[in-house]
Protein backbone atom coordinates (compact mmCIF):
# COMPACT_ATOMS: atom_id res chain seq x y z
CA UNK A 1 0.00 0.00 0.00
CA UNK A 2 1.49 3.33 -1.04
CA UNK A 3 1.10 6.25 1.30
CA UNK A 4 2.52 9.68 0.50
CA UNK A 5 4.92 11.33 2.96
CA UNK A 6 3.36 12.24 6.24
CA UNK A 7 0.17 10.43 5.30
CA UNK A 8 -0.51 7.75 7.83
CA UNK A 9 -3.03 5.01 8.16
CA UNK A 10 -4.64 7.18 10.79
CA UNK A 11 -5.22 9.94 8.23
CA UNK A 12 -6.72 7.44 5.84
CA UNK A 13 -9.12 6.16 8.46
CA UNK A 14 -9.96 9.67 9.49
CA UNK A 15 -10.84 10.65 5.95
CA UNK A 16 -12.95 7.57 5.59
CA UNK A 17 -14.80 8.62 8.72
CA UNK A 18 -13.87 5.42 10.50
CA UNK A 19 -12.12 7.14 13.39
CA UNK A 20 -14.44 8.79 15.82
CA UNK A 21 -13.50 12.05 17.42
CA UNK A 22 -14.19 12.47 21.09
CA UNK A 23 -13.81 15.25 23.63
CA UNK A 24 -11.51 14.78 26.58
CA UNK A 25 -11.66 17.28 29.40
CA UNK A 26 -8.10 17.93 30.46
CA UNK A 27 -8.80 19.89 33.59
CA UNK A 28 -10.00 21.70 35.57
CA UNK A 29 -10.18 18.60 37.73
CA UNK A 30 -7.18 16.69 36.45
CA UNK A 31 -3.93 15.86 38.23
CA UNK A 32 -1.86 17.03 35.27
CA UNK A 33 -3.34 20.50 35.42
CA UNK A 34 -1.47 23.02 37.52
CA UNK A 35 -4.15 25.19 39.00
CA UNK A 36 -7.74 25.59 38.04
CA UNK A 37 -7.78 25.72 34.28
CA UNK A 38 -8.92 23.45 31.54
CA UNK A 39 -8.41 22.40 27.99
CA UNK A 40 -11.17 20.63 26.14
CA UNK A 41 -9.22 18.37 23.82
CA UNK A 42 -10.85 16.92 20.75
CA UNK A 43 -9.02 13.68 20.17
CA UNK A 44 -8.72 10.78 17.78
CA UNK A 45 -7.21 7.86 19.61
CA UNK A 46 -4.42 9.39 21.67
CA UNK A 47 -3.76 12.25 19.28
CA UNK A 48 -5.09 15.74 19.81
CA UNK A 49 -6.95 17.24 16.88
CA UNK A 50 -8.30 20.48 18.29
CA UNK A 51 -8.14 22.31 21.57
CA UNK A 52 -10.48 24.73 23.26
CA UNK A 53 -9.16 26.49 26.36
CA UNK A 54 -11.59 26.72 29.22
CA UNK A 55 -10.39 29.71 31.22
CA UNK A 56 -12.11 31.88 33.77
CA UNK A 57 -12.40 29.31 36.52
CA UNK A 58 -10.15 31.49 38.68
CA UNK A 59 -11.71 34.77 37.63
CA UNK A 60 -12.23 37.04 40.63
CA UNK A 61 -12.75 40.42 38.98
CA UNK A 62 -9.49 41.91 40.19
CA UNK A 63 -9.51 44.84 37.85
CA UNK A 64 -12.98 45.80 39.01
CA UNK A 65 -12.17 45.22 42.68
CA UNK A 66 -9.13 47.48 42.47
CA UNK A 67 -11.28 50.37 41.28
CA UNK A 68 -13.14 50.20 44.57
CA UNK A 69 -10.21 50.28 46.97
CA UNK A 70 -7.81 53.01 48.06
CA UNK A 71 -4.42 53.23 46.36
CA UNK A 72 -2.49 51.65 49.20
CA UNK A 73 -5.22 49.14 50.06
CA UNK A 74 -4.87 47.62 46.62
CA UNK A 75 -1.44 46.33 47.57
CA UNK A 76 -3.18 43.76 49.75
CA UNK A 77 -5.17 42.53 46.76
CA UNK A 78 -2.42 42.45 44.19
CA UNK A 79 -0.15 39.56 45.23
CA UNK A 80 -3.10 37.26 44.71
CA UNK A 81 -2.88 37.73 40.95
CA UNK A 82 -0.01 35.28 40.75
CA UNK A 83 0.11 32.97 43.71
CA UNK A 84 3.49 31.22 43.27
CA UNK A 85 5.32 34.45 42.45
CA UNK A 86 3.55 37.30 44.25
CA UNK A 87 6.18 40.01 44.64
CA UNK A 88 6.51 41.12 40.99
CA UNK A 89 2.87 42.18 41.16
CA UNK A 90 3.41 44.36 44.18
CA UNK A 91 6.53 45.95 42.73
CA UNK A 92 4.99 46.59 39.32
CA UNK A 93 1.93 48.23 40.82
CA UNK A 94 3.94 50.32 43.29
CA UNK A 95 6.30 51.45 40.55
CA UNK A 96 3.40 52.57 38.39
CA UNK A 97 1.93 54.53 41.29
CA UNK A 98 5.31 56.06 42.10
CA UNK A 99 5.71 57.07 38.48
CA UNK A 100 2.43 58.94 38.70
CA UNK A 101 3.37 60.46 42.05
CA UNK A 102 6.84 61.35 40.80
CA UNK A 103 8.39 60.09 44.00
CA UNK A 104 11.80 58.51 44.38
CA UNK A 105 12.33 55.33 46.40
CA UNK A 106 15.35 55.45 48.77
CA UNK A 107 18.24 53.30 47.68
CA UNK A 108 17.94 50.77 50.50
CA UNK A 109 14.26 50.38 49.73
CA UNK A 110 15.16 49.64 46.11
CA UNK A 111 17.65 47.01 47.23
CA UNK A 112 15.05 45.42 49.51
CA UNK A 113 12.64 45.29 46.59
CA UNK A 114 15.19 43.53 44.44
CA UNK A 115 15.99 41.08 47.21
CA UNK A 116 12.34 40.16 47.72
CA UNK A 117 11.86 39.91 43.96
CA UNK A 118 14.77 37.54 43.56
CA UNK A 119 13.78 35.43 46.56
CA UNK A 120 10.27 35.20 45.18
CA UNK A 121 11.72 34.21 41.81
CA UNK A 122 13.75 31.44 43.43
CA UNK A 123 10.65 30.11 45.16
CA UNK A 124 8.65 30.24 41.98
CA UNK A 125 11.39 28.57 39.92
CA UNK A 126 11.54 25.78 42.48
CA UNK A 127 7.82 25.43 42.04
CA UNK A 128 8.23 25.50 38.25
CA UNK A 129 10.98 22.90 38.16
CA UNK A 130 9.10 20.76 40.66
CA UNK A 131 5.94 21.12 38.60
CA UNK A 132 7.75 20.04 35.46
CA UNK A 133 9.19 17.07 37.31
CA UNK A 134 5.72 16.23 38.62
CA UNK A 135 4.25 16.40 35.12
CA UNK A 136 6.87 13.87 34.03
CA UNK A 137 6.11 11.63 37.00
CA UNK A 138 9.37 12.45 38.75
CA UNK A 139 7.87 13.10 42.16
CA UNK A 140 11.02 12.76 44.23
CA UNK A 141 12.50 15.94 42.76
CA UNK A 142 9.28 17.79 43.38
CA UNK A 143 9.08 16.55 46.96
CA UNK A 144 12.66 17.51 47.70
CA UNK A 145 12.51 20.91 46.01
CA UNK A 146 9.60 21.93 48.19
CA UNK A 147 11.89 21.75 51.22
CA UNK A 148 14.09 24.52 49.89
CA UNK A 149 11.12 26.52 48.70
CA UNK A 150 9.70 26.32 52.20
CA UNK A 151 12.97 27.62 53.61
CA UNK A 152 12.62 30.65 51.33
CA UNK A 153 9.10 31.12 52.64
CA UNK A 154 10.51 31.02 56.16
CA UNK A 155 12.79 33.94 55.32
CA UNK A 156 9.81 35.79 53.91
CA UNK A 157 7.89 35.11 57.07
CA UNK A 158 10.69 36.54 59.18
CA UNK A 159 10.80 39.64 57.01
CA UNK A 160 7.14 40.31 56.29
CA UNK A 161 5.11 38.12 58.62
CA UNK A 162 3.50 36.15 55.81
CA UNK A 163 4.50 33.08 53.89
CA UNK A 164 2.67 33.56 50.62
CA UNK A 165 1.13 37.02 50.36
CA UNK A 166 3.83 39.31 51.66
CA UNK A 167 2.25 42.71 51.00
CA UNK A 168 5.72 44.07 51.66
CA UNK A 169 6.12 46.61 48.88
CA UNK A 170 4.02 49.73 49.27
CA UNK A 171 3.98 52.92 47.22
CA UNK A 172 7.15 54.76 48.20
CA UNK A 173 9.31 51.81 49.17
CA UNK A 174 8.95 48.80 51.39
CA UNK A 175 7.05 48.39 54.62
CA UNK A 176 9.86 47.85 57.10
CA UNK A 177 13.58 47.36 57.34
CA UNK A 178 15.12 43.93 57.78
CA UNK A 179 15.11 42.25 61.18
CA UNK A 180 18.52 41.84 62.78
CA UNK A 181 20.50 39.06 61.14
CA UNK A 182 18.01 38.55 58.33
CA UNK A 183 20.45 39.21 55.51
CA UNK A 184 22.90 36.74 57.04
CA UNK A 185 20.19 34.11 57.21
CA UNK A 186 19.45 34.68 53.52
CA UNK A 187 23.15 34.25 52.75
CA UNK A 188 23.13 31.01 54.71
CA UNK A 189 20.09 29.89 52.77
CA UNK A 190 21.87 30.62 49.48
CA UNK A 191 24.80 28.48 50.60
CA UNK A 192 22.38 25.69 51.40
CA UNK A 193 20.60 26.05 48.06
CA UNK A 194 23.84 25.94 46.12
CA UNK A 195 24.95 22.88 48.05
CA UNK A 196 21.66 21.11 47.30
CA UNK A 197 21.34 22.03 43.65
CA UNK A 198 23.82 19.43 42.25
CA UNK A 199 21.66 16.67 43.66
CA UNK A 200 18.59 18.02 41.91
CA UNK A 201 20.59 18.46 38.74
CA UNK A 202 21.50 14.80 38.84
CA UNK A 203 17.91 13.84 39.53
CA UNK A 204 16.24 16.00 36.92
CA UNK A 205 18.62 17.51 34.40
CA UNK A 206 20.97 14.56 33.99
CA UNK A 207 18.09 12.11 33.73
CA UNK A 208 17.88 10.54 30.29
CA UNK A 209 14.21 9.84 30.64
CA UNK A 210 13.59 13.55 31.13
CA UNK A 211 15.71 14.37 28.09
CA UNK A 212 13.86 11.88 25.95
CA UNK A 213 10.55 13.23 27.06
CA UNK A 214 11.27 16.92 26.66
CA UNK A 215 13.45 17.19 23.58
CA UNK A 216 11.51 18.30 20.55
CA UNK A 217 8.32 19.04 22.48
CA UNK A 218 6.54 22.30 21.59
CA UNK A 219 9.31 23.91 19.53
CA UNK A 220 9.15 27.63 18.90
CA UNK A 221 11.46 29.97 17.01
CA UNK A 222 12.63 33.36 18.22
CA UNK A 223 10.45 35.22 15.69
CA UNK A 224 7.36 33.23 16.58
CA UNK A 225 7.98 33.75 20.26
CA UNK A 226 8.37 37.50 19.91
CA UNK A 227 5.34 37.79 17.63
CA UNK A 228 3.12 35.86 20.01
CA UNK A 229 3.96 37.79 23.14
CA UNK A 230 6.07 35.14 24.82
CA UNK A 231 8.41 36.65 27.41
CA UNK A 232 10.74 35.52 30.14
CA UNK A 233 12.49 32.14 30.20
CA UNK A 234 10.47 30.78 27.28
CA UNK A 235 11.70 33.65 25.09
CA UNK A 236 15.29 33.40 26.28
CA UNK A 237 15.19 29.67 25.54
CA UNK A 238 14.92 30.58 21.86
CA UNK A 239 18.19 32.50 22.07
CA UNK A 240 16.82 36.04 22.43
CA UNK A 241 18.68 38.03 25.04
CA UNK A 242 15.72 39.87 26.49
CA UNK A 243 15.15 40.56 30.14
CA UNK A 244 13.38 43.52 31.68
CA UNK A 245 15.93 43.63 34.49
CA UNK A 246 18.42 44.78 31.85
CA UNK A 247 16.26 46.27 29.12
CA UNK A 248 14.25 48.59 31.34
CA UNK A 249 16.07 48.47 34.68
CA UNK A 250 14.12 49.05 37.86
CA UNK A 251 14.64 48.70 41.62
CA UNK A 252 18.30 48.00 42.41
CA UNK A 253 19.19 46.10 39.23
CA UNK A 254 21.22 49.00 37.77
CA UNK A 255 23.48 48.75 40.84
CA UNK A 256 24.43 45.12 40.31
CA UNK A 257 25.82 43.07 37.50
CA UNK A 258 23.15 41.07 35.70
CA UNK A 259 24.31 38.54 33.10
CA UNK A 260 21.26 37.33 31.29
CA UNK A 261 21.72 33.66 30.38
CA UNK A 262 20.23 32.38 27.16
CA UNK A 263 19.95 28.95 25.66
CA UNK A 264 19.00 27.89 22.16
CA UNK A 265 16.68 25.37 20.65
CA UNK A 266 13.32 26.65 21.76
CA UNK A 267 11.86 23.27 22.68
CA UNK A 268 10.68 22.16 26.09
CA UNK A 269 14.12 20.88 27.03
CA UNK A 270 15.65 24.28 26.23
CA UNK A 271 13.00 25.95 28.36
CA UNK A 272 13.67 23.61 31.24
CA UNK A 273 17.42 24.28 30.99
CA UNK A 274 16.75 28.01 30.73
CA UNK A 275 14.85 27.92 34.02
CA UNK A 276 17.87 26.26 35.63
CA UNK A 277 20.21 28.93 34.21
CA UNK A 278 17.89 31.69 35.41
CA UNK A 279 17.95 30.08 38.81
CA UNK A 280 21.74 30.16 39.01
CA UNK A 281 21.83 33.76 37.82
CA UNK A 282 19.23 34.71 40.39
CA UNK A 283 21.37 33.28 43.18
CA UNK A 284 24.36 35.28 41.89
CA UNK A 285 22.32 38.48 41.78
CA UNK A 286 21.08 37.89 45.33
CA UNK A 287 24.62 37.50 46.60
CA UNK A 288 25.62 40.79 45.00
CA UNK A 289 22.55 42.54 46.38
CA UNK A 290 23.26 41.33 49.90
CA UNK A 291 26.90 42.33 49.65
CA UNK A 292 26.20 45.81 48.34
CA UNK A 293 23.08 46.85 50.24
CA UNK A 294 23.62 50.35 51.68
CA UNK A 295 22.24 51.73 54.93
CA UNK A 296 19.48 54.31 55.01
CA UNK A 297 15.73 54.65 55.00
CA UNK A 298 13.60 52.10 53.16
CA UNK A 299 10.55 54.23 52.58
CA UNK A 300 9.93 57.65 51.09
CA UNK A 301 7.67 59.90 53.12
CA UNK A 302 4.29 60.02 51.40
CA UNK A 303 2.26 61.08 54.43
CA UNK A 304 -0.67 58.91 55.44
CA UNK A 305 -0.76 56.13 52.86
CA UNK A 306 -4.42 55.43 53.53
CA UNK A 307 -5.28 58.90 52.27
CA UNK A 308 -2.86 58.85 49.37
CA UNK A 309 -4.00 60.88 46.38
CA UNK A 310 -2.37 60.29 43.06
CA UNK A 311 -2.22 62.93 40.31
CA UNK A 312 -4.24 62.23 37.19
CA UNK A 313 -2.47 60.40 34.41
CA UNK A 314 -1.53 56.96 33.26
CA UNK A 315 1.62 54.91 33.66
CA UNK A 316 2.75 51.48 32.64
CA UNK A 317 5.25 49.60 34.72
CA UNK A 318 6.61 46.14 34.18
CA UNK A 319 8.70 43.67 36.09
CA UNK A 320 10.48 40.50 35.06
CA UNK A 321 8.83 37.73 37.01
CA UNK A 322 9.90 34.10 36.96
CA UNK A 323 7.48 33.47 34.11
CA UNK A 324 7.96 36.62 32.08
CA UNK A 325 6.70 40.15 31.88
CA UNK A 326 4.29 41.25 34.57
CA UNK A 327 2.86 44.63 33.68
CA UNK A 328 0.49 47.02 35.40
CA UNK A 329 -1.17 49.82 33.51
CA UNK A 330 -2.49 52.21 36.11
CA UNK A 331 -4.79 55.12 35.37
CA UNK A 332 -5.64 57.80 37.88
CA UNK A 333 -8.19 60.55 37.71
CA UNK A 334 -6.66 62.32 40.68
CA UNK A 335 -8.82 60.65 43.28
CA UNK A 336 -8.24 58.41 46.28
CA UNK A 337 -8.85 55.29 44.24
CA UNK A 338 -7.45 54.14 40.93
CA UNK A 339 -9.65 54.90 37.95
CA UNK A 340 -8.59 51.69 36.25
CA UNK A 341 -5.85 49.12 36.74
CA UNK A 342 -5.13 46.78 33.89
CA UNK A 343 -2.94 43.73 34.39
CA UNK A 344 -0.68 41.98 31.94
CA UNK A 345 0.06 38.43 33.01
CA UNK A 346 2.82 36.39 31.41
CA UNK A 347 0.84 33.19 30.92
CA UNK A 348 -1.93 34.31 28.62
CA UNK A 349 -0.11 34.16 25.24
CA UNK A 350 1.04 30.59 25.80
CA UNK A 351 -2.05 29.40 27.63
CA UNK A 352 -4.74 30.81 25.37
CA UNK A 353 -3.00 31.29 22.03
CA UNK A 354 0.01 29.00 21.60
CA UNK A 355 -2.07 26.01 22.68
CA UNK A 356 -3.87 26.27 19.32
CA UNK A 357 -0.52 26.04 17.55
CA UNK A 358 1.24 23.42 19.64
CA UNK A 359 -1.27 20.99 21.07
CA UNK A 360 -2.93 19.70 17.87
CA UNK A 361 -0.82 16.79 16.65
CA UNK A 362 0.59 16.19 20.11
CA UNK A 363 -0.22 13.09 22.11
CA UNK A 364 -2.19 13.25 25.34
CA UNK A 365 1.03 12.21 27.15
CA UNK A 366 2.66 15.58 26.65
CA UNK A 367 0.01 18.12 27.55
CA UNK A 368 0.96 18.46 31.22
CA UNK A 369 4.67 18.68 30.48
CA UNK A 370 4.04 21.21 27.71
CA UNK A 371 2.09 23.41 30.13
CA UNK A 372 4.76 23.11 32.77
CA UNK A 373 7.50 23.95 30.29
CA UNK A 374 5.76 27.23 29.46
CA UNK A 375 5.14 27.82 33.17
CA UNK A 376 1.48 28.50 32.51
CA UNK A 377 0.02 29.89 35.71
CA UNK A 378 -3.79 30.12 35.40
CA UNK A 379 -4.47 32.87 38.00
CA UNK A 380 -2.80 35.52 35.90
CA UNK A 381 -4.76 34.47 32.82
CA UNK A 382 -8.05 34.79 34.66
CA UNK A 383 -7.28 37.52 37.19
Amino acid at each position, binding site marked *: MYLPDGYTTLDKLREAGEMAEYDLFFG*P*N*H*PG*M*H*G*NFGYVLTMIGTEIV*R*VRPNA*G*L*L*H*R*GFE*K*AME*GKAWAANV*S*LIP*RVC*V*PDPDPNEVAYCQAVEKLLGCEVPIRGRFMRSITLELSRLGSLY*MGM*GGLAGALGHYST*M*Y*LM*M*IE*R*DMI*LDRFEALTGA*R*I*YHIYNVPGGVRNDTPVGWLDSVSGLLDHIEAQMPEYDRLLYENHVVWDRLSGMGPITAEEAMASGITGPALRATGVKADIRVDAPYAAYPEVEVNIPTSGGGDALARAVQVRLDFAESVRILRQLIARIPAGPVHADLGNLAKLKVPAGDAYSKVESSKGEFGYYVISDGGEKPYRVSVRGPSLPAGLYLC*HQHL*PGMKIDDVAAWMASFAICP*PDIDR
Partner: protein
Amino acid sequence: MEDAVLFNLRDERQSAWESVLNYFRKRSMWMLYYCTGCGAIELPPSMTSRYDMERFGMGPMATPRQADLLLITGYLSVKTLKRVIYSYEQMQEPKYVVGFGSCPINGGIYWDSYPVINHLELFMPVDMSIAGCMPRPQAVLDAFQKLMAEIQDGHAVGYKRYRKHYDWYKRNQDAVLARTEAVLEPWEDPFSDPALVESLWNDAPEEIKENREVRHDA
Protein backbone atom coordinates in the same frame (compact mmCIF):
# COMPACT_ATOMS: atom_id res chain seq x y z
CA MET B 1 -24.84 38.55 57.41
CA GLU B 2 -28.45 37.59 57.58
CA ASP B 3 -27.80 34.57 55.40
CA ALA B 4 -25.47 32.71 57.67
CA VAL B 5 -27.50 29.62 58.41
CA LEU B 6 -26.67 27.74 61.56
CA PHE B 7 -26.23 24.05 61.13
CA ASN B 8 -26.68 21.41 63.74
CA LEU B 9 -23.88 18.90 63.34
CA ARG B 10 -24.60 16.17 65.89
CA ASP B 11 -25.22 12.66 64.68
CA GLU B 12 -27.10 9.84 66.34
CA ARG B 13 -25.06 7.44 68.45
CA GLN B 14 -22.95 5.14 66.37
CA SER B 15 -22.70 1.39 66.67
CA ALA B 16 -19.48 -0.42 67.47
CA TRP B 17 -19.22 -1.62 63.88
CA GLU B 18 -19.63 1.92 62.61
CA SER B 19 -16.90 3.08 64.94
CA VAL B 20 -14.49 0.45 63.59
CA LEU B 21 -15.23 1.55 60.05
CA ASN B 22 -14.73 5.15 61.07
CA TYR B 23 -11.27 4.27 62.28
CA PHE B 24 -10.32 3.07 58.80
CA ARG B 25 -11.97 6.09 57.22
CA LYS B 26 -10.07 8.56 59.32
CA ARG B 27 -6.73 6.83 58.86
CA SER B 28 -6.99 6.73 55.10
CA MET B 29 -8.37 10.01 53.78
CA TRP B 30 -7.74 10.49 50.11
CA MET B 31 -8.21 13.98 48.90
CA LEU B 32 -9.26 15.05 45.48
CA TYR B 33 -6.45 16.62 43.49
CA TYR B 34 -8.36 19.72 42.47
CA CYS B 35 -6.88 23.17 43.07
CA THR B 36 -9.95 25.38 43.11
CA GLY B 37 -8.19 28.51 44.27
CA CYS B 38 -5.09 30.07 45.69
CA GLY B 39 -5.15 27.95 48.86
CA ALA B 40 -3.76 25.13 46.79
CA ILE B 41 -0.37 26.82 47.04
CA GLU B 42 -0.01 25.60 50.63
CA LEU B 43 -0.89 22.03 49.69
CA PRO B 44 2.45 21.12 48.07
CA PRO B 45 4.33 22.01 51.28
CA SER B 46 1.81 20.06 53.38
CA MET B 47 2.01 17.08 51.06
CA THR B 48 5.73 16.98 50.44
CA SER B 49 8.81 16.28 52.47
CA ARG B 50 8.67 19.01 55.05
CA TYR B 51 5.25 18.44 56.57
CA ASP B 52 4.45 15.09 54.96
CA MET B 53 0.74 14.56 55.02
CA GLU B 54 1.15 10.93 53.99
CA ARG B 55 2.14 9.90 57.50
CA PHE B 56 -1.55 10.33 58.38
CA GLY B 57 -2.48 8.12 55.47
CA MET B 58 -3.60 11.10 53.40
CA GLY B 59 -2.72 11.43 49.78
CA PRO B 60 -3.91 13.07 46.58
CA MET B 61 -6.17 11.09 44.30
CA ALA B 62 -6.75 11.67 40.65
CA THR B 63 -10.50 11.55 40.28
CA PRO B 64 -13.54 12.28 42.43
CA ARG B 65 -14.62 8.64 42.28
CA GLN B 66 -11.59 7.59 44.28
CA ALA B 67 -11.52 10.47 46.72
CA ASP B 68 -12.97 10.87 50.20
CA LEU B 69 -12.07 14.46 50.85
CA LEU B 70 -12.90 17.50 48.77
CA LEU B 71 -10.74 20.51 49.50
CA ILE B 72 -12.21 23.85 48.55
CA THR B 73 -8.89 25.65 48.45
CA GLY B 74 -9.97 29.24 48.53
CA TYR B 75 -12.56 31.37 46.77
CA LEU B 76 -15.01 29.82 44.35
CA SER B 77 -16.00 31.56 41.18
CA VAL B 78 -19.41 30.60 39.88
CA LYS B 79 -17.82 28.73 37.01
CA THR B 80 -15.79 26.66 39.46
CA LEU B 81 -18.75 26.15 41.78
CA LYS B 82 -20.47 24.20 39.03
CA ARG B 83 -17.44 21.90 38.63
CA VAL B 84 -17.04 21.52 42.36
CA ILE B 85 -20.65 20.44 42.77
CA TYR B 86 -20.24 17.92 39.94
CA SER B 87 -17.12 16.60 41.62
CA TYR B 88 -18.79 16.41 44.99
CA GLU B 89 -21.74 14.51 43.63
CA GLN B 90 -19.44 12.04 41.90
CA MET B 91 -17.66 11.23 45.12
CA GLN B 92 -18.80 8.17 47.01
CA GLU B 93 -20.07 8.33 50.57
CA PRO B 94 -18.76 8.86 53.15
CA LYS B 95 -17.24 12.07 51.86
CA TYR B 96 -16.00 15.17 53.58
CA VAL B 97 -15.53 18.79 52.55
CA VAL B 98 -12.89 21.10 53.96
CA GLY B 99 -13.02 24.82 53.20
CA PHE B 100 -9.65 26.55 53.04
CA GLY B 101 -9.21 30.11 54.12
CA SER B 102 -11.68 32.90 54.64
CA CYS B 103 -13.21 32.90 51.18
CA PRO B 104 -15.47 29.82 51.46
CA ILE B 105 -16.65 31.07 54.85
CA ASN B 106 -17.87 34.51 53.89
CA GLY B 107 -16.27 35.54 50.63
CA GLY B 108 -13.13 36.88 52.28
CA ILE B 109 -11.39 39.64 50.41
CA TYR B 110 -13.62 38.98 47.40
CA TRP B 111 -16.91 39.40 49.26
CA ASP B 112 -18.03 42.20 46.92
CA SER B 113 -16.60 40.73 43.76
CA TYR B 114 -19.04 39.87 41.00
CA PRO B 115 -17.87 36.37 39.97
CA VAL B 116 -17.16 34.98 43.45
CA ILE B 117 -19.74 33.34 45.67
CA ASN B 118 -19.82 34.33 49.32
CA HIS B 119 -21.04 31.46 51.51
CA LEU B 120 -20.11 27.97 50.49
CA GLU B 121 -22.48 26.47 53.09
CA LEU B 122 -25.42 27.53 51.00
CA PHE B 123 -24.40 25.24 48.17
CA MET B 124 -22.80 22.25 49.80
CA PRO B 125 -22.19 20.99 53.33
CA VAL B 126 -18.81 21.90 54.80
CA ASP B 127 -17.37 19.67 57.49
CA MET B 128 -14.40 21.79 58.46
CA SER B 129 -13.37 25.35 57.77
CA ILE B 130 -9.86 26.70 58.18
CA ALA B 131 -9.75 30.43 58.73
CA GLY B 132 -6.93 32.60 57.48
CA CYS B 133 -5.46 33.70 54.21
CA MET B 134 -3.59 31.54 53.52
CA PRO B 135 -3.89 28.91 56.22
CA ARG B 136 -0.38 27.74 56.98
CA PRO B 137 0.57 24.07 56.49
CA GLN B 138 0.47 23.66 60.25
CA ALA B 139 -3.09 24.97 60.32
CA VAL B 140 -4.00 22.69 57.43
CA LEU B 141 -2.60 19.64 59.17
CA ASP B 142 -4.25 20.65 62.42
CA ALA B 143 -7.58 20.91 60.65
CA PHE B 144 -7.12 17.46 59.20
CA GLN B 145 -6.36 16.10 62.66
CA LYS B 146 -9.54 17.69 63.97
CA LEU B 147 -11.49 16.30 61.04
CA MET B 148 -10.11 12.86 61.87
CA ALA B 149 -11.38 13.22 65.41
CA GLU B 150 -14.79 14.29 64.10
CA ILE B 151 -14.91 11.33 61.76
CA GLN B 152 -14.06 8.99 64.61
CA ASP B 153 -16.80 10.51 66.74
CA GLY B 154 -19.26 10.30 63.89
CA HIS B 155 -19.77 14.05 63.76
CA ALA B 156 -18.55 14.69 60.23
CA VAL B 157 -21.85 13.93 58.56
CA GLY B 158 -22.07 16.61 55.90
CA TYR B 159 -22.85 14.03 53.25
CA LYS B 160 -25.89 12.84 55.20
CA ARG B 161 -27.05 16.42 55.54
CA TYR B 162 -26.62 16.91 51.82
CA ARG B 163 -28.73 13.89 51.07
CA LYS B 164 -31.41 14.78 53.61
CA HIS B 165 -31.74 18.42 52.52
CA TYR B 166 -30.90 17.95 48.88
CA ASP B 167 -33.85 20.10 47.79
CA TRP B 168 -32.63 23.04 49.81
CA TYR B 169 -29.09 22.82 48.45
CA LYS B 170 -30.30 22.20 44.93
CA ARG B 171 -32.55 25.24 45.06
CA ASN B 172 -29.65 27.46 46.10
CA GLN B 173 -27.36 25.96 43.48
CA ASP B 174 -29.88 26.47 40.75
CA ALA B 175 -30.54 30.03 41.82
CA VAL B 176 -26.91 30.87 41.14
CA LEU B 177 -25.95 28.51 38.36
CA ALA B 178 -29.07 28.22 36.26
CA ARG B 179 -29.92 31.89 36.17
CA THR B 180 -32.39 32.83 33.51
CA GLU B 181 -32.49 36.60 33.87
CA ALA B 182 -30.10 39.39 34.71
CA VAL B 183 -29.40 40.18 38.34
CA LEU B 184 -29.28 43.96 38.27
CA GLU B 185 -30.56 45.03 34.88
CA PRO B 186 -30.72 43.21 31.57
CA TRP B 187 -28.08 44.04 29.02
CA GLU B 188 -28.66 43.90 25.31
CA ASP B 189 -25.45 43.53 23.34
CA PRO B 190 -25.89 45.91 20.38
CA PHE B 191 -23.72 43.65 18.26
CA SER B 192 -26.02 40.69 18.61
CA ASP B 193 -27.88 42.42 15.79
CA PRO B 194 -26.56 40.85 12.55
CA ALA B 195 -27.63 43.85 10.46
CA LEU B 196 -25.32 46.13 12.43
CA VAL B 197 -22.39 43.75 12.05
CA GLU B 198 -23.13 43.42 8.35
CA SER B 199 -23.08 47.18 7.89
CA LEU B 200 -19.72 47.31 9.71
CA TRP B 201 -18.37 44.72 7.31
CA ASN B 202 -19.61 46.70 4.34
CA ASP B 203 -17.73 49.79 5.44
CA ALA B 204 -14.57 47.88 6.41
CA PRO B 205 -11.40 48.34 4.39
CA GLU B 206 -10.45 45.67 1.88
CA GLU B 207 -7.62 44.09 3.87
CA ILE B 208 -10.02 43.41 6.73
CA LYS B 209 -12.68 41.96 4.49
CA GLU B 210 -10.25 39.37 3.21
CA ASN B 211 -10.12 37.76 6.64
CA ARG B 212 -13.81 37.53 7.11
CA GLU B 213 -14.09 33.78 7.07
CA VAL B 214 -11.03 32.99 9.18
CA ARG B 215 -11.62 30.38 11.83
CA HIS B 216 -9.35 30.15 14.80
CA ASP B 217 -8.84 26.44 14.72
CA ALA B 218 -8.31 26.32 10.96
